[in-house]
């Protein structure tokens, strides 16, 4: 199956689909370009992983390395905290998306609207619909799905990836290779 068809193939959305970020460099460029980024970390980062490592381990390190504030959704907050990342906000994903759709919302730290939002670890259907909501309701916002399941409604999405490939791509994009276990 294609790496850039929706992870759940029936979840086709419309006429425009997200370009896939196949290489770490493309994701790294988005991270560098962001002026007011936000990383949304959902509960599935606690169950996705391999070789004794979880997605949340890598994303916590990525957030620290890139200095990106984190919004914890579901029950990801405590797990982030024990990994040294104090979430800027703990909030339900839908509530957060509704605020992000407001171009005047001053962001999780009150410093101004976010320009790019990285999203990972919601259940597939929830992330799919939430990104659809942002695509149509927040044209001012760039959305990037960091989940290992292709999300057609994001501005950019990782393709469908197995754990080793996903780990490698995230680690490469955020410069975590040297610290890899």
């Amino acid at each position, binding site marked *: *199956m294609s790496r850039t068809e929706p*992870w*759940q*193939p*029936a979840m*086709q*959305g*419309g*006429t*425009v689909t997200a370009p896939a970020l196949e290489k770490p460099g493309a994701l790294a460029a988005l991270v560098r370009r962001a002026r007011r980024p936000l990383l949304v970390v*959902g*509960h*599935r980062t606690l169950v996705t992983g391999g070789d004794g490592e979880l997605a949340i381990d890598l994303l916590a390190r990525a957030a620290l390395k890139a200095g990106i504030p984190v919004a*914890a*959704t*579901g*029950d990801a*907050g*405590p797990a982030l*905290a024990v990994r040294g990342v104090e979430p800027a*906000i*703990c909030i*339900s*994903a*839908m*509530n957060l*998306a*509704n*605020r992000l*759709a*407001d171009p005047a*919302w001053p962001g999780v730290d009150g410093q101004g609207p976010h320009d790019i939002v990285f999203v990972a670890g*919601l*259940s*597939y*259907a*929830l992330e799919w*619909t*939430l990104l*659809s*909501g942002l*695509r*149509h*309701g927040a*044209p001012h916002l760039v959305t990037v799905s960091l989940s290992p399941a292709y999300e057609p409604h994001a501005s950019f999405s990782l393709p469908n990836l197995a754990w080793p490939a996903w780990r490698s791509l995230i680690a490469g994009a955020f410069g975590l290779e040297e610290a890899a276990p």
Partner: protein
Amino acid sequence: MKGIDIHIGEIASPLGRVRELRVGIGRVGSGTWDEPVGPTPCPSPTALRDWDRRLLARYRPFYLPLCDLCCLCTYGKCDLSGGKRGACGITLAAQQSRVALLAACIGTATHTSHARELVSHLIDRYGRQFPLDPGGLAVDLRMPIVELVCGLRPETLADLETVLEYCEGQVVHLLAATHTGQEADPIDFESKVLHAGMIDHVALEVADVAQVSALDFPKADPEAPLVDLGIGAIDREKPVVLVVGHNVPPAVAILDYLAAHGLEGAVEVTGICCTAIDMTRRSPSAKIVGPISWQLRYIRSGIPDLLVVDEQCVRADLFDEARDAGIPVIATSAKNCIGLPDRTKEPADALVEALSTGAVNGMLVLDPEKVGEVAVRAAIRRRPLRRVPPSLDIEAIASACGGCGRCIRACPTEADLPGAVQAAGRGEIAALGAMLASCVGCGRCEEVCPQGIEVHRLMAAACDDCEVYAVRTGRGAIQDVEIREVGGPIVLGEIPGVVAFVGCANYPDGGREVAEMVTEFAKRRFVVCTSGCSAMAAAMHRDEEGLTPYERFSGRFEAGGVVNVGSCVSNAHISGAAVKIASIFAKRRLRGNYAEVADYVYNRVGAVGVAWGAMSQKAAAIAAGFWRLGIPVVVGPHGAKYRRMLLGRQDCDEDWMVRDRRTDEEVYVGPVPEHLFIAAETKEEAMALIAKLAMRPNDTSRGRSIKLSHYIDLYRRCYGRMPDDLHRFVRTKADLPVIQKDELLPLLERNGWSERPIPDPTLLPEEAYQ
């Protein structure tokens, strides 16, 4: 000539003696009901538009398009993305609301049709003048929703026909609004969604009051019997009939036939979905197999000797599955004929013969009484011919798995099926069997497997699920005296809320989460209500002492009670309880006085609906009925596919102003309740949301401090920290939980908090009050 109602108790004439003769002309009368009619009896789709817009100004739709396209007319397909309009001029926002209205209309039409069939059948069987009696002496306010919406007080089955005529007319109007070139404004579409929901609850109440009255179901009975749930409860040695669906007359006829012919105990009558609950209301000897998600696994078990299907939530492939399992089928609903020949008019003997000998795989029989006889007789004759499927060689079948992952990509719960199947291929089957607990039973994994592995069947074979659980069968309405006892504490906030777990079984991680939430909130002294598949899911969990929630907690509508009202149509008793609080406790007029009562419920009754596995259009309509009463609804993650949320913005103070009736001033009350419709990601998040959404502007300080303590505790459990929005919910220092005051005050002060008054809150202008 209108409003004529002649009642003759008994008359002797040359033609004979006549008893209880009643002749009515015109609409259902109000008898001795002298309450003045309010401003909106039998409201049109626009009569409550102003109320809707007040709600929707706070809870603006956040659209989540499932599709950027509109495919409804031949102008299209039209691409509505990027701000583009369709050929008809419609926007993407309007299209989402339009689809939401279509879903609500489907749901409302389904319940209205269900109610119509029930009422017609019951009138045929018991007569037009059969009295409505949902609760004996314990229920004086018999149909609060009908009284509120329609301004009518039905007394007989025949009176319900008038109510249904109103519902049917409204559904037609609402559906018409979705036609190309009609409604275009998203908020007007949303207003109509709320109207559909309100009508839905009218139809629900009609259906359940009719069946409770005529079929002798428990009448507002907190001590409704505990009944068996689970495949393990079935005596497989006996002939087994399975009934699937929602409309209970065929199942009742089966039970009645057994009773009439001395066969009680000789045949197992089992059910799936709401019919199952309703038949246990008729006879506690009937067995509930499980919720909607159990259809495939139970049919494939080969246990049923005969399958009877009625309507709603019946799998479209159930006939095929039954045929493959050697189980003959009787379809009983005009809405679900399954392509089978109509043999309603043939003699029962011929039908029994055809089904028993395998001459046919199924038939349509539209006479419930005939179904009752034929199903029992055919099941008895089929029993010796039961084909128990051979044991599967799980390891051999699973070893064919190539690990392509198509199954996990088709699975709504994203279960790691390839890992479990491959482990089973190595002889480790425990993980595969354990997955059945969180499986929604859709079977999509089997549809996509390139090796042809029947994953769901394999899962069921790997799971020895013979548990028997106790579930309290549906009690029906809430007693007036119960409302008198809890109305005050609920309105003052001292009972921290009423939380209702309703709807389908499209759970993100199994029904266990529903049971855990039910138990959690009952322990916290909320009033917990359940219905439908959620009522069953709540039973399938035991505490450390081996008790299900229904064994552990009382069935009373009280703090810490777990109240199973019944099937889907019984949901009207939950909204009805909120309305009863306005009427019985607060003495608000009900009759055709919707906006004032909804304003009361919204500002004072801390009720929250939870549809953790919401799947259907009916669930959409039920939710909309709660929304119009100002009762928020939390759904599981799949609920996002209803295409939009109705979300408040707690950070926008101007959204949370109300009029204080004491001073006529506009005052800030904080974001209570913060949302009207929101999907939660996890159970823990849902529980924090439920506790928060139970807050209301009218809470006393004591009540608010109780609610805050639950919110803080559940929030900390989920997020591992203090809520960052406490300052929005604390009006005075007295609102703070006493033992946390020293810890919380500094947090409030950091957010610039200052005390504010507790108003007599309303969203309505004074002239709206009766």
